[in-house]
């Protein structure tokens, strides 16, 4: 017996299970018995992502036998009608194949509670349903409440959960609440929202979902940076010229026009997804992957992040115009149905950030996001300084750009490296070539959807992939001055061609520094 084995006692207690061992890599952790209560079941997110993700987890054997799914909504549905709705969404959108036995098993734990958020009786019925599930399905008093609803209803729902006694777990039980962005629209509103939620649930029972953190490619940033020795020596201002982080969509606001007006690209995407990608790229090595250590490092780098002194030189915004995009006539942003034609809301936002640490002294991070851009792509491009080229004629390296490391978050998940290579032939001509790693090549197993991972982590009570309130507040502190600057301007945002890569002012933002945007 090795010392490690001797240290493991056959004691059965919460958190101590002799049948599990760190040396037993075959057994995956599955959550204990629990129920998931979903508010906002008929929404797009629930239909296309959440319900299919629950099925996919069941299909992969990652849900416990004692699992229940309860929908809460206004529709006048029976349990069976709701189950039919779940089945349809699973059949249409699930990643893994539909299997009748898996579905049957899930089906017996599906319930529906009809009611409005301000209806006391409905929440009493919900409490009864959950009680019944505990005895019929053996969910053992463990329940997660997923609020897939607009933030303005958080107050009502959380206080209803409190009133009906659903927010407080008994001994050896847990209650958790899951909330989705937007976490407010500025620092003050984010705090207000948080006070609402944390007045009912303790901070460590609140799971804030940023679905980007559930993506394999995003988690791989940590593996790539910290499991390899290749990058760390050059991951600093000595070698890196600048970093570009892009999240582009080729679609417009469409049916979300009403929601989008007054929010804009920066609040919708930069405050959460892009600043998370930024933090993972720029942070120092955490002591461990435990939630606290990981979040501490992310918070440290967000805290050290600064906008340029003159904000007007470090930001750009735009609105997409009407025009032809990829063979299709598209409507301009202000002409979208239900949109205020005078709207100053931006559909494109770019900004320049600096990190006040020794590692990043003087290295700009350019973040951009927009709708109706050239194509749908999210990537992080780390652009290195040009090597001194005295060995080569200027003509022989003219076709060569800077070395770059590109992390493709989606689509075509992978990493590519661009560097110069000799063109075959008698002359010493150097041209850019690309070395490519594609997830689809090296790991043909399909990556799980982000929501599968995140829902599983909620049920396991594993918090590292969920931002804390402090992270949310720090990111608003970065963004608020930009929003204030834009709000102080009289002129409307610059228009840009649909299908282009954004307004001219965004190109000028980089041109002022002698740089240019990559074409992703």
């Amino acid at each position: 017996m090795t010392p490690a084995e001797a240290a493991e006692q056959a004691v059965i207690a919460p958190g101590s299970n002799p049948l599990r061992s760190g040396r037993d890599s075959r057994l995956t952790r599955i959550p204990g018995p629990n129920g998931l209560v979903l508010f906002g079941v008929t929404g797009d997110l629930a239909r296309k992502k959440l319900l299919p993700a629950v099925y996919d987890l069941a299909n992969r054997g990652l849900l416990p036998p004692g699992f229940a799914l309860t929908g809460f909504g206004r529709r006048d549905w029976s349990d069976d009608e709701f189950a039919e709705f779940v089945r349809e969404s699973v059949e249409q959108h699930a990643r893994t194949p539909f299997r009748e036995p898996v579905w049957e098993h899930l089906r017996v734990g599906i319930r529906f509670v009809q009611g409005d958020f301000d209806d006391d009786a409905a929440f009493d019925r919900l409490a009864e349903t959950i009680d019944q599930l505990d005895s019929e399905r053996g969910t053992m008093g463990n329940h997660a409440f997923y609020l897939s609803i607009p933030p303005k209803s958080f107050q009502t729902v959380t206080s209803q959960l409190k009133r009906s006694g659903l927010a407080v777990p008994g001994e050896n039980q847990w209650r958790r609440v899951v909330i989705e962005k937007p976490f407010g629209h500025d620092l003050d509103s984010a705090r207000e929202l948080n006070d609402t939620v944390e007045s009912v649930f303790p901070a460590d029972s609140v799971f804030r979902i940023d679905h980007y953190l559930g993506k394999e490619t995003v988690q791989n940033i940590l593996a790539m940076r910290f499991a390899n020795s290749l990058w760390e020596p050059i991951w600093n201002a000595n070698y890196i010229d600048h970093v570009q982080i892009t999240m582009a969509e080729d679609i417009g606001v469409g049916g979300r026009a009403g929601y989008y007006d007054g929010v804009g690209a920066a609040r919708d995407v930069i405050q959460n997804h892009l600043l998370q990608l930024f933090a993972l790229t720029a942070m120092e090595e955490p002591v461990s992957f435990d939630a606290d250590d990981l979040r501490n490092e992310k918070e440290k780098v967000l805290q050290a992040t600064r906008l340029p002194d003159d904000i007007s030189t470090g930001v750009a915004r735009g609105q997409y115009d009407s025009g032809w995009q990829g063979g299709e006539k598209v409507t301009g942003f202000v002409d979208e149905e239900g949109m205020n034609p005078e709207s100053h809301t931006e559909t494109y936002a770019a900004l320049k950030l600096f990190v006040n640490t020794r590692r990043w002294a003087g290295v700009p991070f350019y973040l951009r996001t927009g709708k109706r851009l050239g194509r749908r792509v999210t990537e992080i491009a780390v652009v290195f300084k040009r090597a001194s080229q005295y060995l080569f004629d200027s003509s022989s390296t003219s076709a060569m750009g800077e070395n770059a490391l590109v992390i493709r978050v989606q689509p075509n998940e992978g990493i590519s490296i661009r560097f110069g290579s000799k063109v075959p032939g008698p002359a010493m001509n150097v041209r850019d070539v690309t070395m490519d790693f594609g997830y689809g090549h090296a790991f043909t197993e399909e990556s799980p959807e982000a929501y599968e991972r995140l829902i599983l982590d909620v049920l396991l009570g594993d918090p590292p992939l969920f931002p804390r309130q402090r992270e949310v507040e720090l990111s608003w502190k970065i963004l608020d001055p930009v929003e204030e600057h834009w709000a102080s301007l009289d002129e409307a945002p610059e228009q840009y061609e649909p299908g282009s890569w954004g307004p001219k002012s965004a190109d000028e933002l980089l041109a002022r520094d002698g740089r240019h945007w990559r074409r992703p």
Partner: protein
Amino acid sequence: MRRELTNTTTSKVAKLLDEIRDEGGAVALGRVLTLLIHTQLGVEEEAIAAANEASREHPMRVVVVSRNKDDVRAEEDARLDAEIRVGGDAGASEVVVLRCYGEIGSQLEGIVQGLLLPDAPIVAWWPTFMPSDPGHAQLGQIAHRRITDAAAQREGCEAITRLADAYRPGDTDLSWTRLTNWRAHLAAMLDQPPFQPVTSAVVRGDTASPSVQLMAAWLRARLHVDVELSEPADDLPVGSSGLSQIVLHREGGENSITRIEESTGLMQQTGQPDHRVALSRRGLRDQLNEELRRLDADDMYREVLEEYARTQKEFA
């Protein structure tokens, strides 16, 4: 696409592989491992089919080495025939079948050496016969991971004893793989309240099945309790692992998992409603997939082998 080469050499095979790649279609990019399958002439196909399917999860190069019989001094002219399969005939992998006749079969390492992917880990798999000491066997020596199947041997339990004696890091056996579902359900039971100690356990199943023996050894090693082995009730199915039922006696009552249908188990716990759980029959492809997922040494398997060997000695 299939290409055959008769009376050939490894370097000719390697060259043809390169040519096929240049012509386009089959890309070697991103292959993560080389799987060496050591088997016998005529029975290659089942293993190749499983490997092809497993390659959807693990893109790999599969090298199948088959010989007439173990005795390489057989009166037979030395000859190497090869077959290359790529594209639709090979899933996401590329398959090289090397048929070794006569004395060629005594130098297997030299035969496969030129076909190993640079740097990538090597997995050796004996789907049929099993060397008594995998770590020192031909092909086993150069492999990072060695997969045997005690259940495919005539005396499964004796095979386990031999594996325990010869264990080297990287060894694994499919009769252990077949237990993972059962083990996961058992572990999940102990994750939950009431957290009462287990006082003894019963494992019911085909006692000649190595999986059943390993399950008992695992429970003994982890729970430090007596484990009783017995034959299953007649009317219950046993599945690929040979297991029928496991009962954990605890202070407050009894926990059990019983296979009630071919791919369904019934989980019974005190204070909880009965649950039906999936105990799907796992094909060779699934088992191989699980094995290829991790290429480091399986410490728990070693611990369980040791426990099995220890109790065998006590009985003897």
